[in-house]
């Protein structure tokens, strides 16, 4: 789900940067409000590396290959740090590996970063539902993990379908976009299951990381 250079028209690319700039500004403003803004930088740094590595591990789902996004996990674990972390990771992916591109860095940040924000807010509002229950935590993990990737696929799909250049075979490209989007459905479920197990594990070994200090009940 990394849109490369030369695929989207200039207006969409500029709009992507505008939205990303706004989201980054909101994120940094909220980070600065914290008592110690540097406190979570180590966590953000490690998760940025994990996000980068995850993009290199491909899962073959014919006719395409896809990879874990981890943006839901980033959102929950990093909160307002998630969006800047995603921008940094996407920058390295574009410059080093050619995943995405520099002109589409803004739009790719929107595709992966905005769902991370949404996951963060859903998780924060579901803490009273979880109440330290492992099963409920897993359920929330499944929802936020799967939803984040699902929303990313949806944004990716809507942008691409609506901005196909006229000089290519529009019907064939639309068909290809539908195929790719449908191919992500199994990955949405895999991402949800992975997030659920990770949340349960982190709650057990490092509950502070999850923003939950109470002990896990069975």
């Amino acid at each position, binding site marked *: 789900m990394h849109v490369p250079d030369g695929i989207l028209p200039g207006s969409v690319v500029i709009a992507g940067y505008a939205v990303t700039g706004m989201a980054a500004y909101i994120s940094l403003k909220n980070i600065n409000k914290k008592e110690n803004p540097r406190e979570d930088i180590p966590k953000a740094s490690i998760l940025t*590396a994990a996000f980068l590595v995850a993009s290199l591990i491909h899962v073959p789902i014919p006719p*395409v*290959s896809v990879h874990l996004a981890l943006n839901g996990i980033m959102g929950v674990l990093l909160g307002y740090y998630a969006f800047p972390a995603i921008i940094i990771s996407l920058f390295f992916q574009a410059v*080093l590996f050619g995943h995405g591109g520099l002109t589409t860095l803004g739009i790719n940040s929107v595709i992966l970063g905005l769902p991370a924000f949404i996951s963060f807010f859903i998780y924060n509002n579901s803490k009273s539902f979880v109440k330290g229950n492992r099963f409920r935590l897993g359920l929330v993990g499944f929802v936020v993990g799967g939803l984040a990737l699902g929303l990313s696929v949806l944004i990716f799909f809507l942008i691409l379908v609506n901005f196909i250049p006229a*000089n*290519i075979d529009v019907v064939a490209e639309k068909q290809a976009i539908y195929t*790719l989007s449908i191919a992500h459905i199994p990955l949405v479920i895999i991402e949800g299951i992975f997030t659920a197990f990770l949340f349960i594990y982190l709650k057990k070994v490092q509950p502070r990381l999850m923003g939950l200090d109470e002990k896990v009940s069975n």
Partner: protein
Amino acid sequence: MWGDLLMKRIIILTLFIIILFSPIIAHAHGAKIEYNANMSYELLAKYDSGEPMANAQIIVYAPDDPATPWTKGAADENGRYSFVPDFSKKGMWTIQARYAGHGANINIEIGEEASLAGSTGYTWLQKLIMAASVVWGMIGTALFYTRRKN
């Protein structure tokens, strides 16, 4: 005396006939080669994972008009596509492979600076080293911000 003169004339006449018809004789055993420089460029479009970009749309832009496609087509199931460029249009040709919003561009120099082969992307070893460098940088950042202050 007359006999010698006659013999000389016969020899000269024979040589004249041989010289006259020699191209025909030579032509009967000759051969020729014609050639047409009809070189084509074969492209192979692949994903980073190494899988071919099956049925990817290929758009070729000539150097004189980088905004209008010079030709368009589709790769086969193995991601292969061939085209014969107009060699009179020297300069940088741009070829884009695209499938479902994914794709890549490659620039090919055609003319005096033309190269026989080229590619974009990196080997898995290069990627591994780059990924390890970034991960190490991130770990270093994490360690820097978790250091104890004296």
